[in-house]
């Protein structure tokens, strides 16, 4: 049986990129699929060229080509990531991590209940936090760029892992700015139960951000190896 050459395989990778498949993990799977289909066609119709067989195989993916597969893959990976964040969060509900979370809730409660923070200090803290966050993202981007230059391949799950924390962080910062412009209510005058609920909410919110921006990216390599067994093959 006539088999595809290395050049053919390389041209199939280019073909998938030209058809909006930018992630290497999906390119790899589609290239193997197309290659199998082309070889099968050569078996049945030995006279047809590589390009003719390739185009016939591509047609089987329907009028939208690879686009539907790409969209659904992104959705599936998003689900996988969401579950991963949730498992990390649930881990903080168990001993010993629940102790540190309880301590954080208790501290937040006392800060909200007994301390009075001036508007200037509050605004200063938020701006300081925003600058720190932007600096951290800037450093992370530079690190990623260096890595990308070393290895041009893009992995979908890797992008999700490194980008979601940043998006979550910006969402929280925007919320703080919204608070500044809407004025800060005197929380210490609220009912105790409301302050407890608010403390749990604030701590959970920041815990999610910590998980997405620090904890998961720290273990990125481990998760990428689990998701992509081919990660160390290429």
């Amino acid at each position, binding site marked *: 049986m006539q088999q595809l050459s290395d050049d053919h395989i390389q041209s199939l990778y280019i073909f998938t990129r030209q058809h909006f498949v930018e992630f290497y993990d999906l390119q790899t*799977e*589609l290239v193997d699929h197309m290659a199998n289909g082309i070889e099968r066609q050569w078996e049945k119709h030995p006279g047809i060229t590589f390009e003719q067989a390739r185009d016939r195989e591509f047609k*089987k*993916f*329907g009028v939208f080509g690879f686009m539907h597969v790409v969209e659904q893959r992104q959705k599936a*990976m998003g*689900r996988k990531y969401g579950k991963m964040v949730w498992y990390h969060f649930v881990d903080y509900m168990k001993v010993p991590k629940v102790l540190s979370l309880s301590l954080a809730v208790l501290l937040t409660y006392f800060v909200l209940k007994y301390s009075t923070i001036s508007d200037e200090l509050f605004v200063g803290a938020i701006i300081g936090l925003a600058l720190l966050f932007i600096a951290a993202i800037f450093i992370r981007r530079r690190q990623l760029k260096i890595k990308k230059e070393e290895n041009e391949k893009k992995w979908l799950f890797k992008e999700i892992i490194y980008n979601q924390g940043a998006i979550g962080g910006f969402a929280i910062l925007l919320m703080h700015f919204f608070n500044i412009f809407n004025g800060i209510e005197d929380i210490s005058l609220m009912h105790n139960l409301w302050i407890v609920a608010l403390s749990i909410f604030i701590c959970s919110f920041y815990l999610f951000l910590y998980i997405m921006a620090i904890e998961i990216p720290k273990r990125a390599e481990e998760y990428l190896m689990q998701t992509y067994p081919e990660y160390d093959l290429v």
Partner: protein
Amino acid sequence: MSKTSLYRGNLVAIVLQLLESEGRMYGYEITQKVKEKTNGTLHIKEGALYPVLHKLEADDFLTVEVEKVGKRIRKYYKITKSGEKERVGQLAALQEYMATMQQLFDPKFSY
């Protein structure tokens, strides 16, 4: 309604059943096996198969293994323990559906 749209709703059950009986398989192999087993009656569309495989993988019903075949990397799918439970559930639902349809269309089965 075309046959394809009838099958599409059961693609998850078809894929899980196939992987349970055949062991690990790759995408192209699944399309060919289905064609072979149904004597060419059923063609799984590539554009429908991969989204199902990726969703099942994200839900931990399938696990993946890879092998280098020359310059190509082949991705194999295998059913997991939770995938096996899902398969049983899917088949039971499918059988129930078929029994209901039979009751509806075949007077011999109606009470």
